[in-house]
């Protein structure tokens, strides 16, 4: 894959972009990250006016492979429902950008990267990062790609937090913003579930206080348990019941602790396949970034203040009825702040029993809403023929 120089914004299908030398990423914690790298992918081409770029922000365990085929799992990208030929976000019309967040483990600088100062993996010496830090890195990448204004910045869950952060920090670079199944701050329950996941990782003897990179084994058991617990929060009770009920794996009970129930087997599989593609320390850092997210806090405790500079931005907010991780009330809270700030917002709660994961799944109403929204944004931007 090609690499980009800061000086020469070449449009490729992606690669790893390196921050220019002597230009560290300044973090909210006060620390700085030198020689930052951001792994990204693009689809389509930037038009002559530079008006068709769409940035997609990924969720906690997502990555830059939003469309196409994932290089590790071999599965389709995580949002092929919305991104691809003939989809609402279409490489034939749009210049699509998706990058791995700072602190991630799919090519961007994160705790598994080598610290240039020591020649060893960062591990826990990696600085704590925030959603705003992730967005600051994205903004540098977007600029390096020659994009001045984004037609849209789009994201679900943690991706939606980044979208809000974009609206707060870089409103002049946005024409529209799409926030799906997200929140403006992490609730006590959100933090609590993340803490369970982190404790599972840290309780694994192979974690070795984060310095497992030098050893042979990784804290796979802990990370798998973290994923299992988190996965339950992405589903809904009715969806789990419908899919598994009390169905058994085999005839009869084992009278032991094997995975008797199908739901156990399913969760174990979710955990086991997750460790192949995710780094335990990255999981700690990214969940921390989400816990620290509280957009209003940085604006005098008034969320509307965060959006005060974004009155020209068109917003679309979507939530799902059965999402109890980032419920409709949290999304409506964002909408009310947008309204109070005088922003143009569209909002709809979509009927679904699939829980938080609905935003990644087959939800025709979401597709239609997004298609309609982006279509009107394109018309307003003078893109539609």
């Amino acid at each position, binding site marked *: 894959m090609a690499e980009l120089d800061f000086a020469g914004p070449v449009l490729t299908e992606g690669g790893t972009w390196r921050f220019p030398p002597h230009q560290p990423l300044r973090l909210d914690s006060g620390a700085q990250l030198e020689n930052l790298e951001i792994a990204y992918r693009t689809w389509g081409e930037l038009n002559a006016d530079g008006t068709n770029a769409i940035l997609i922000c990924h969720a906690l365990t997502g990555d830059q492979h939003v469309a196409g085929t994932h290089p590790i799992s071999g599965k389709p990208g995580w949002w092929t429902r919305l991104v691809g030929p003939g989809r609402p976000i279409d490489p034939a019309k749009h210049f699509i950008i998706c990058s791995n967040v700072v602190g991630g483990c799919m090519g961007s600088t994160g705790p598994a990267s080598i610290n240039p100062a020591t020649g060893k993996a960062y591990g826990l010496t990696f600085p704590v990062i925030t959603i705003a830090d992730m967005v600051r890195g994205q903004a540098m990448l977007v600029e390096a790609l020659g994009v001045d204004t984004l037609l849209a910045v789009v994201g679900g869950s943690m991706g939606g937090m980044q979208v809000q952060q974009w609206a707060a920090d870089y409103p002049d670079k946005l024409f529209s913003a799409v926030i799906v199944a997200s929140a403006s701050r992490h609730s006590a329950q959100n933090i609590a579930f993340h803490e369970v996941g982190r404790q599972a990782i840290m309780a694994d003897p192979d974690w070795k206080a984060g310095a497992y990179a030098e050893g042979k084994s990784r804290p796979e058991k802990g990370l798998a348990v973290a994923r299992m617990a988190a996965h339950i929060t992405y589903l809904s009770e009715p969806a789990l019941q419908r899919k598994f009920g009390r169905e058994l794996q085999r005839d009869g009970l084992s009278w032991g602790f094997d995975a008797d129930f199908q739901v156990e087997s399913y969760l174990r599989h979710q955990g086991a396949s997750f460790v192949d593609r995710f780094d335990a320390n990255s999981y700690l850092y990214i969940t921390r970034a989400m816990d620290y997210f509280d957009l209003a806090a940085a604006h005098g405790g008034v969320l509307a203040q965060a959006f005060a500079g974004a009155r020209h931005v*068109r917003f*679309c907010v979507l939530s799902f009825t059965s999402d109890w991780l980032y419920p409709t009330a949290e999304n*409506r809270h964002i*909408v*009310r702040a947008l*309204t*109070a700030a*005088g922003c*143009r*917002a*569209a*909002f*709809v*709660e*979509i*009927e679904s029993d699939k829980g938080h994961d609905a935003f990644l799944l087959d939800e025709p*109403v979401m597709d*239609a*809403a997004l*298609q*309609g*929204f982006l*279509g*009107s*944004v394109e*018309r*307003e931007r003078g893109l539609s023929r």
Partner: protein
Amino acid sequence: MIREDFKEILRLVRPGSRVLDVGCGEGVLLDLLTREKQVDGRGLEISAAGVAACMSRGLSVVQGDADQDLDHFPDRTFDYAVLSQTLQATRRPRHVLDELLRIADRAVVSFPNFGHWRVRWSLLHRGRMPETEALPLPWWATPNIHLCTLADFLALTEDLGVRIDACAAFAGNGPARQIDPTKAIENWRAESCLFLLSRNPPPAMAEPPAPSGDLFDG
């Protein structure tokens, strides 16, 4: 085929103005206003299907209801707030009307007139709740919980210190008829009516917003 009350709203709204349509349904009126009057339109709609339809028309519509979600708009965000055939279905019509004229300089409000002769006839002669063109559903299925007559509405506008800038009556599928709402006969003749309202005195002449009638208040 454009609804007669929509035609009247199209006539009343100034081109290029900022309009909030409360209870905008599938966005038919907002779409008309955007295309014909180049308004900067927003909508509030309670049904998800309605909001989804609006979004696919490219309208900025928020799912919510008039009783709760008007409170979140800042003062005088809009030139017009439109409440078409919805006031009688709100839980707090007085509050809603007050809010409309807080967030917008002018309100366009229409509602079925419970003083129409057919309604009175149904009650008087048959002793039954009316089922008319303007009130098509039986009492047990209607969303209308706060029905009023033209005279009742006039009293409320007086009570709230609201000024009536225009009033039109509708009957059957006929065109709008400009009326003097204070004439008692209109309360018999109008099947539904539409008001253009503003604060008293009108906002164009009063900056900052006028004090209320009470000398000691404001």
